[in-house]
């Protein structure tokens, strides 16, 4: 029977499906950062709040590791987006 879950969108921001995520995990891209670099999961406006957990669970399942052993990947500052015009004024305003 065909696997219906493969068309589920796991990362809404970047429109990435479960099928794509599983396909690349199977090819050996089994860390969150590798999948992020390849498929842009976690790089959307929500910065992975909507998809990180689900993807980490897939990695855990595919590699037979507990969730806690899956690396959640890097977060890069600034976490809160700030306008260029505000940053450009720096501390002098």
């Amino acid at each position, binding site marked *: 029977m065909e696997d219906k879950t493969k068309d589920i969108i796991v990362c809404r921001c970047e429109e990435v499906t479960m099928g794509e995520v599983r396909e690349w995990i199977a090819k*050996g891209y089994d860390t969150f950062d590798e999948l992020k*670099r390849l498929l842009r999961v976690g790089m959307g406006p929500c910065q992975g709040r909507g998809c990180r957990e689900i993807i980490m669970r897939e990695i855990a399942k595919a590699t037979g590791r507990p969730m806690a052993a899956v690396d959640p990947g890097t977060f890069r500052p600034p976490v809160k987006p700030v306008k260029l015009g505000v940053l450009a004024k720096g501390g002098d305003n």
Partner: protein
Amino acid sequence: MTWKNTAEAIVIGGGINGTSVAYNLAKLGMKNIVVLEKNTVCSGSTGRCGAGIRAQWGTEMNCRFGLACVEKFEQLSDELGMDVGLNQSGYLMVAYQQSEYEQLQKNVALQNSLGYMTKIVSREEAKEICPGVAVDDAIGFTFNHRDGHADPFLTTFAYQEAAKRMGVTFHKHTEVTGVKVHNGVAAGVVTTRGEIDSPLVINAAGPYSQFVAKMAGVDIPNYSERHEIIITEPVEPGVCPPMLMSFSGNYYLQQRPHGSIIGGCSPEGHPADYTLGATWDFLEHMSQVFTKLLPRAKDIRVVRQWSGLYNMTPDRQPIICEAENVKGFFLSCGYSGHGFMFGPVTGEALAQHIVLGKSDIPIDMLHYRRFAEGKLLIEPAVV
């Protein structure tokens, strides 16, 4: 991946240079090649870079390399069977000083003589190429529409996938801790997961290549500098279509296909402490550069900031050669700020040099011997 104790060739480093040379060795018929990467593929400088590609250079050697790179990228997605995200939106070079403009004009003459048809453009034309750009203080511009950028992750993963199809093995989370040398000949490596014997060891360790060279008893004068970069939220296309670059203005800025704008510069005193911090000073400085050049960008938000390392040599040109005192130990490092664009071409050239004894594009002048002989290859056109 199953672990084998022998290999025909070992490549240390899974960046653009390591994956490219591994792929090209396999393409030339070599079997049983292993790539060792201490983190994951494309986690080093390659995954942190601006990924710009240009042939607007100021030395004949770099113009030839640059043109070969542009041509390579133009057919790379086909060759590797995966989209590498090439986007040829051109580089617009901006000069603010008379001497700088004269140099750009000389560069254009040189590029044209080699078949790369860069043009000198007026301020009005510059504003058509990049609508909204504030460059009234600039005095001259050059543009070539074939320059551009590619996706560094997709490019490196495309090499990895193509190499895997030809039987190349990749071991990630595997750090090389020693290089075995017997009687002046490379014999293999020691890693955190065990040893592998091989008569051919290629050092493509990017910012760490001087440490890997030392493991084989080879001294190279490389060091690494931290360079920072920022990226904005995605906005509608057309805010900054070409790569805007200036040597005296000291910046590069460009909008990506997803709509985000990236920007970097070369501030004084790059820390060479191998850390990858992100500083407030850079964020503030770069935001000023952004808003001065693109006033209407002031309400666009910065979403991420990071840094990466340039592996530097005394003339900021790479080292691509066999070590003088260790036969079978090759170096491909020191790419400064242009190793992403060079990687596809230099990886192929090094593989040809190893397998065929000669390469389509000459690399002999890139031996590290040049530093002792005082034959430095000084390039005027770098940020």
